[in-house]
């Protein structure tokens, strides 16, 4: 029997989801709720807490998992993690400076679905350390100065809205001004529907900025992680000088549920996984999270020399 397709779009509602992401947030205890530093917001791992791999059901402690970069020690399943964890894993000495954290979403359209968008934002801000679905930071990877834009799936499914567009655009300007490369860590269910056409136009906005980075001969690397869909795939996610996938990540334009409903057939095993995209020529390589930092170092060295 084919496994039930993940409903990627469901994450875009902004409602609480009783899934893996909820499990993830229990890994940490917040030590600085509400207090921002210019470097990182420190979250402490909940020592001694047990966590189960959703793939192979292997159980280990959260400490063991974090030491293994949130990759299952048994089956190599790459857990879905957020910007804080990626910054931690990639930046030298966990030292980085976050940029543009003051840019916040706004309910310009007065959009109301089951809840008004502004109320939805307020509620999420109250509960979460995250301010939006992407964070931008500069620091060093293996000695190379680099700017990373990293999406947070926990914030309305990593949805692409005006804030993501503006932060990435400013990030690109920063890279050009400082002559440094950009890494985009993608993890998104698609568009921020509550921002309607403004959300769509961010695809063009970011693409224009990337073309200016290209003129400046600066590397732009897209790292596609589980899951990456919709507008992100249909724009800057697929526009890297290198498009890199994490193992087993679900990556696509349309979500698997939508495709299945359209073609009325079961989807083949491994469909829309990183390995599938590599075989079809849309990923340049797949890199294990545990080797990510070191490989980025090599890549930047190769680009420079």
């Amino acid at each position, binding site marked *: 029997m084919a496994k039930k397709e993940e409903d990627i*779009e*469901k994450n*875009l*509602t902004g409602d609480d989801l009783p899934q893996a992401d909820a499990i993830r947030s229990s890994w940490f205890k917040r030590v600085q709720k509400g207090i921002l530093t210019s470097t990182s917001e420190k979250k402490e791992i909940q020592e001694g807490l047990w966590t189960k791999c959703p793939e192979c059901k292997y159980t280990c402690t959260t400490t063991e998992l974090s030491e293994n970069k949130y990759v299952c020690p048994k089956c190599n399943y790459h857990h879905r993690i957020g910007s804080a964890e990626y910054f931690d894993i990639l930046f030298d000495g966990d030292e980085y400076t976050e940029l543009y954290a*003051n*840019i*916040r*979403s*706004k309910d*310009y*359209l007065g*959009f109301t*679905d*089951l809840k008004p968008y502004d109320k939805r934002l307020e509620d999420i801000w109250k509960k979460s350390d995250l301010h939006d679905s992407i964070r931008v930071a500069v620091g060093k990877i293996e000695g190379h100065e680099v700017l990373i834009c990293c999406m947070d799936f926990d914030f309305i499914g990593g949805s692409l*809205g*005006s*804030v993501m*567009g*503006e932060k990435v655009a400013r990030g690109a300007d920063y890279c050009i001004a400082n002559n440094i490369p950009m890494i985009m860590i993608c993890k998104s269910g698609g*568009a921020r*529907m*509550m*921002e*309607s*056409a*403004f959300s*769509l*136009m961010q*695809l*063009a*906005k970011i*693409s*224009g*900025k*990337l*073309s*200016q980075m290209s003129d400046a001969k600066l590397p732009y690397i897209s790292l596609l992680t589980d899951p990456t869909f*919709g*507008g992100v*795939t*249909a*724009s*800057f*996610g*697929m*526009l890297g000088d290198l498009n890199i996938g994490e193992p087993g990540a679900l990556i*696509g*334009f*349309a979500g698997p549920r*939508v*495709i299945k409903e*359209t*073609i009325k*057939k079961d989807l*083949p095993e491994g*469909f*829309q996984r990183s390995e599938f995209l590599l075989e*079809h*020529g*849309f990923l340049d390589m797949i890199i294990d999270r545990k080797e990510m930092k070191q490989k980025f170092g090599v890549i930047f060295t190769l680009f420079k020399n």
Partner: protein
Amino acid sequence: MPSLENRQFIELEKPIKELVDELKDFRQRAEKNAKVDYSGTIDQLEKSIIAKREDITKELTSWQKVQLSRHPDRPYTLKYIDKMCTNFVEIFGDRGVKDDKAMVGGFAQLDGETVMVIGQQKGINTKMRQLRNFGMANPEGYRKALRLMKLAEKFNKPIITLIDTPGAYPGLEAEERGQGEAIARNIYEMMRLKVPVICVVIGEGASGGALGIGVGDKVLMLENTWYTVISPESCSSILWRSWEKKEIAAEQLKLTPEHMHKFGLVDGIVPEPAGGAHWDYDLAAQLLKKELLPLLQELKTIDPEVRIKNRIERYSKMGFWDEI
């Protein structure tokens, strides 16, 4: 254009249909009985139909605009090309996989000047609708479009794109062949085209499938069209968890030309014949041509590098946020 006998009517056109039925009835009577003069009644009915057409499109809800944009008699890309241009030479294929029938294009002359016209194409009957895949292009459609754009750029010809799609096709092969990459590439490359680019939403403007041929120096929308990030039906199903809230979703998405123009996301609204473009293809095409010609002249006077810079800046300004 369908004759009055073959016209199709959608729900909101019911009052027009009643008048049309009456008119048909009197015409038949006039034919059967030459002795009675019905011309006065027929004249009057014809005038009432035009008045009703105007009346009905005066204050449409967002959802009604969506419905009108999908009217089965509505003119599609090839119709506009036929009615606006001369010497159209259609070019097929992406030189890779196949010719995508949902995306058409080619060189043509607009008022004597060569332009490249590209657009999604919907079918005009059941068989053609399937062949055209309901205007939902696959990756090869987007790659075909880009190939034609690059060809236009080489010969320094302006590009006009006509957008009419319920979305890029969400199929298995589409994913295998990189639907996301194809759209991404188009958006990126269109941003950098050295020739003037004008994009016009002539029907449905749904999401990345629309933007994949929708990045330009000027973007217009016809009066009875819509443009946003997702179809109201899909938006309803995701955010309201029901397919039934499409009217509300359409309202909330603010997807009408009036909204889009107010937001500064499109540059102008092209008027349609009374009751919608499907009532008069010739007039619809002339009205569009009238808007296109001065824009082409205006854009041609700008230096290509400046035009590209302006294009990037145009999109850079889009969005809303708070800075705290």
